[in-house]
Each structure stands twice: as C-alpha cells, then as structure tokens.
C-alpha cells in the first residue's frame, strides 16, 4: 500500500507539472520555443533546491513529498519537446537557431540547478 501511495504521489506530481507546462505554452507564443526553455530552467531550479532541502525530511511523509516534487519536476520539464523543437528550428529557421536553443537550454538549466542547490544550502539552516 505504501509503495502504491509513493507511485501515486510521483504520478500526481507529473500530471500537475505537465498541466503547468501546457498552460505556459498557451501563454507564451513565439517562434523561438521560449516556453519550453522557461519550464526546463524552472524545473531544474526547483529540483536543485529540492535536492538540497528534501533529504532533511524524514519519515514516510518526507518520502511522499520527495516523490511529489520529483514527479512535478519531471512532468514540468520535457526533453522530447526540447529535442523536437531544436529539430524544428533547424528546419524552419537555421541550424544556428537550433544550436542557440541547445546551448542556452544546457547552460541555463545547469546554472539553475546549481543555483537552486547552492541557495538552499546557504540560506536554509540545516
């Protein structure tokens, strides 16, 4: 039962994350896939912060929250749309647009994850 509950927490997080991503896609309409870039950076920032904070939570509730957050970040971020949009940029614009999307996504997401982790580690007392 408890394992089932943890899977449900992960799935619920994933569903909510996907809806949040879709809602942003509808708000931001641009030829450059900014909405995917924003959700990916946001998801990495949250997962980075969570990776510094959530291990401190103990017990079953802690594990539930960890699964919920991990599910949310996985559902909010997307690799498939990122790859498809990079391909699409190469076709509809130039290979430089595609390369810009790839480099920006990688650099900003790595920086976001690192910042989220470092910020929580520095500001939140253990």
């Amino acid at each position: 039962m408890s394992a089932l509950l943890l899977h449900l927490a992960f799935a619920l997080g994933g569903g909510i994350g996907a809806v949040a991503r879709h809602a942003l896609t509808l708000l931001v309409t641009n030829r450059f896939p900014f909405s995917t870039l924003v959700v990916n950076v946001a998801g990495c920032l949250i997962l980075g912060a969570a990776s510094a904070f959530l291990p401190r939570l103990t017990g079953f509730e802690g594990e539930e929250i960890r699964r919920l957050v991990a599910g949310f970040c996985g559902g909010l971020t997307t690799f498939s749309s990122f790859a498809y949009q990079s391909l699409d940029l190469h076709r509809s614009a130039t290979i430089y647009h595609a390369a810009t999307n790839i480099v920006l996504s990688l650099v900003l997401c790595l920086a976001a994850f690192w910042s989220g982790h470092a910020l929580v580690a520095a500001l939140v007392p253990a």
Partner: protein
Amino acid sequence: MSWPALLAVFVGGAVGSLARELLAPMVDLGRPWMATLAVNILACLLIGWLYALRDALHRHLIHFGAVGFCGGFSTFSHFVLEIEGLLLGGAWLEAAAAAALAIGLGIAAAVLGERLAVAYARRRQGP
C-alpha cells in the same frame, strides 16, 4: 484552454511519469545516467511519430500523447541532475559525452519517429 485538453495533458503526464519511474530502474546499461538517456530517446521517437501524424490525429490525442505522455516520460530536470553530478565529480568528459549523446540521439530519434510514422501510414493506405 479547454477542460478536456487539460485533462488529457494531466493524465498523459501522470501516466508518462509513472511509466518512467517504473521502467528506468529496469534499464541497466552500466552507468546510471544511461537509463534516463534511454527513456528520453524513446520519448523523442514517440513525439516524432505523433507530430508527423498531427493533422490526422484527434487534437486531444496529441494533448495526451505528445504534450502529456512524452513530456512526463521524458525529463530535462533529471538529465541535468545527472550531468551536474558528473561535473561535480570531476568527470567532465563523461558529462560532455552524456549531454552530446542525449541531444544527438534524441534529435535523431525524433527524425526516425517521423519517418516510421510516414512509412507506416503509407503501408496502411496501400499502394
């Protein structure tokens, strides 16, 4: 924004996330990041297939499959978490290889998915 579309995205995202959580631990390719790599490549193959048939499929099937399932099944955050772990561990070359493989194979898989979808649709239509 319509409720059926939101529901399709929610269910797709939940099912995709669950599928990744259950499948990824079964993939043993030697290095931990390779499980995420495999899952992401599979999602790219599927999204290529679905988007190639975008005009022929019901829009809520795209909401469920491409936006929801592929988005939930694939993950950018966990991909970055693993790259970050490699970088912090000093494995720069492996981190670069993991990123290059994911992006290169992911885009290749999307192209392959599109071509498979087109070829399959032609075969079903007959000569």
